[in-house]
């Protein structure tokens, strides 16, 4: 029976078809799916912050876009999938609350996460095949390695398949 593997916040995992992989309630965080359509293996990492080098408390590599993606690529490499075989689909990076004037980066962390994820994937030569990022709503995502389809669910809207 096909399982659905759930990835928590600042966490990652991998799955092989017919299993699917999911993460629930992405706000400003980003879910990055890396997959190989031939072996039908996919990995998902749920990152919170853009840059591990800007933060002292950076032992948990899966919290950050830069180190989180590196860890997931390493994991997939160790399963025999070369980086050049990997494709990416990403979702999240929303601005959940809006403030008229704010000195903190509270409102812009989603955008910073999106930029950091794209920069990291580009530097690794991994192509982003589809994305559903930004705007002002939360997302739950489910990736099916069988079809390479990413289903994005939002509150009060129809599911979107990218």
């Amino acid at each position, binding site marked *: 029976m096909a399982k659905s593997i759930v990835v928590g916040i600042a966490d990652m995992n991998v799955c092989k078809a017919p299993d699917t992989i999911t993460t*629930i309630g*992405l706000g400003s965080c980003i879910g990055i799916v890396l997959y190989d359509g031939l072996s039908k293996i996919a990995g998902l990492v749920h990152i919170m912050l853009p840059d591990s080098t800007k933060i002292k*408390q950076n*032992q*948990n590599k899966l919290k950050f876009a830069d180190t989180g993606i590196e860890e997931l690529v390493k994991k997939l490499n160790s399963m025999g999938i070369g980086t050049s075989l990997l494709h990416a689909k990403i979702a999240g990076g929303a601005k959940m609350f809006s*403030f008229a004037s704010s*000195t903190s980066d509270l409102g812009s962390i989603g955008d910073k996460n999106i930029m950091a994820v794209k920069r990291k994937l580009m530097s690794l030569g991994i192509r982003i095949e589809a994305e559903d990022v930004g705007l002002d709503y*939360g*997302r739950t995502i489910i990736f099916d390695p069988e079809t390479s389809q990413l289903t994005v669910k939002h509150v009060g809207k129809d599911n979107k398949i990218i």
Partner: protein
Amino acid sequence: MGDGKENISDNARNALSELGNIGAGNAATSLSVLLSTKLVMSPPHVDIYDFNALENIIGGPDATVVGVLSLVSGDMDAMLLFILGVDDAKQLVGQLIGEDTDWSSEMGMSAIAEIANILIGSYVASLETLSGLKIRYGQPSLCVDMAGSILSVPCIEFAKISDKALLINSQFIVGDKEINGFIMMVSEMHSYDVLLNKLGIGGING
């Protein structure tokens, strides 16, 4: 995790609980006057949560909730987050402006934002009085979405300094309607230290 953040001392925990108690107590009184009904408040919980455990306090990461967030600045930086489940939001709007008002209408939303504003205002006022710190709070912003998405906002702030989040959490029950709402104060660790220092306790760890 070896970051020492789990080692919140009993003194610090008691002081933060008491602050939460008085803050939420005053907030509850304001709300009680507004709704002209009895309002019971549970004792606040002060605890350190794993990011992934946090969402389960409020009915799971994909439960739809109403969140109202206000930024606190001045002598301490913090976020105050008021969270209500959808059923609770319906009840609250019903009590405030009538059963036939749709909670998700503009009218309903502005009623919830106003309630949150009053709660947050009284919370901040008691913090100021007790600690002598000068604290401002900004215009609250409202959002209806998955609990996980809304909680990711304070979690991200925490993620910069820790792998866990410290919460002062209070719950309300309004009249006989059992409306459950949560007020959370999430602050940067150094702001907790500032606050606890003012209260004569060394800091979060001692």
